[in-house]
């Protein structure tokens, strides 16, 4: 089940604009791979391309041996890729249990209370009421519920799109624990983030995107010292929690 996600030479075009240009990266099972860059750099486009919501103009995407670019989104989900969304896309009117059952759609589509609790535990919100309407939950709980829903799919690769947005430093630190535990269980995690403290604490490797192209790659320690990165990204925004 654990498989490596490999993006090779990805290109995405919207009209005449290169939203992504020759981007390559690999997410190994058990690793946490960070993707950072200024707004508009193409980070969400990359997730959309990987999950089948944006067409590739160039390059290939493989999950293990299997080529997944060009597949419709629901087939890519079935292949083992799960994600969370920058603006949270829970099934708001449905309760917590149903959201988790939805996450498990590619398997059972049914969620026992025990399994639900286990997922919530792994996502760091074990005390959530299963019958609560998900849109009524506090913001931070919604984010974690989204992570739990993604975990319910038993994915090879989990893609988190700015999961720390709106969190305070204490919550962000807890999120680091959650993410590292998920990776330790054998899942490959692709983490898009603005919050450098989170990236530094959680990620093994990082790719920096700028204007759709790879600006730098390396460990978090390496890229924060990269002059090109500082110039384009860190220098102006410094360290900030979104």
């Amino acid at each position, binding site marked *: 089940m654990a498989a490596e996600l490999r993006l090779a030479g990805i290109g995405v075009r919207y009209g005449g604009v290169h939203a992504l240009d020759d981007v390559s990266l690999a997410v190994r099972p058990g690793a946490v791979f960070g993707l950072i860059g200024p707004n508009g750099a193409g980070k969400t486009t990359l997730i959309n391309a990987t*999950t089948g919501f944006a067409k590739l103009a160039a390059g290939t995407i493989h999950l293990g041996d299997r080529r997944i670019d060009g597949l419709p989104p629901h087939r890519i*989900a079935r292949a083992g890729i799960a994600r969370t969304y920058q603006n949270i*896309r829970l*099934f*708001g009117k449905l309760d917590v249990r149903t959201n988790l059952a939805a996450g498990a759609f590619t398997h059972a589509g049914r969620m026992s209370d025990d399994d639900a609790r286990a997922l919530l535990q792994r996502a760091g919100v074990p005390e959530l009421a299963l019958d609560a309407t998900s849109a009524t939950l506090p913001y931070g709980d919604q984010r974690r519920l989204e992570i739990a829903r993604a975990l319910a*799919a038993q994915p090879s690769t989990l893609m988190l799109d700015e999961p720390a947005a709106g969190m305070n430093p204490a919550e962000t630190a807890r999120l680091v624990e959650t993410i590292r535990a998920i990776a330790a269980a054998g899942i490959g995690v692709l983490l898009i983030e603005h919050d450098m403290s989170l990236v530094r604490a959680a990620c093994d490797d990082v790719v920096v995107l700028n204007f759709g192209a790879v600006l730098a790659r390396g460990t978090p320690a390496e890229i924060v010292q990269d002059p090109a990165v500082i110039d384009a990204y860190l220098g102006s925004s410094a360290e900030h929690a979104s």
Partner: protein
Amino acid sequence: MNLGTFYAQHSRLIDEIGINALLALSLSVSLQAGQLALAQAAFAGIAAYVSAIASMQFGVPLPASIAVAILASALAAAALAYPVRRLRGIFLAIATIGFGEILRVVLNNLDVTGGAEGLSGIPNDVTTPIIYGALVLVAIVLAIVARTKFALAVALTREDENAARGVGVDVGSVRFASLVLGGAIAGLAGALYAHAFYFLAPTDFGFPRMEQILVWCVIGGVTSPIGGVLGAVFLSVLPEVIRPLADFREITNGLILLGVILFVPNGLSTLWAKRGS
């Protein structure tokens, strides 16, 4: 008055309520999937005519003529599903309304359908027990489906199509299946209609009828499975109840409709839900 005389006086209304409930169920299947597909009346019309013609011109016995009619309407739904697969919301609604209008013109112009004068003398062999038996059967089938993964897929499709795709739901198939299922149920209603009321005209299944079905479903409540049935029963009985109001029937009808929708916008069925869990 005993039950017998009550039935004798109101048998047409009782039959109508049963068929209206079926029509409401057929639309609610689409609405549950979040599709405003307003072609149910047209599907019912196709089935009604197919069933009538099968019986009258080909001497097909009732069960077979109903089966053939359901097949016809389901096929029509399947055929319609393809061109409208990318349409959502009001665009889907208008496209399906257009389909209904095209059908109305076709029915008006073909000899075999009797043109604008319609068909009369259809064998009157559908009785009240048959109608309500069919209704119960469909209700049971839908209740069974409600426990399957398909029902979850339908709910997710309705709530957020892209998030649904993200968790592995084949949204295209869900939309197709719900349209065809709705078409089949509407077909059953149409076939029963033809044999229960033994007269068909193209105007029986036009936009006014479709509007009516939509009103039943929304008044009853879209989110509840019995919502459509509730709305159909309530709004079919209402004109009879307010009959003593004579000339004020129509305006009372409209005002009650307005009143319900403004005070209980989620439908009458939600009144029960609040009291329940």
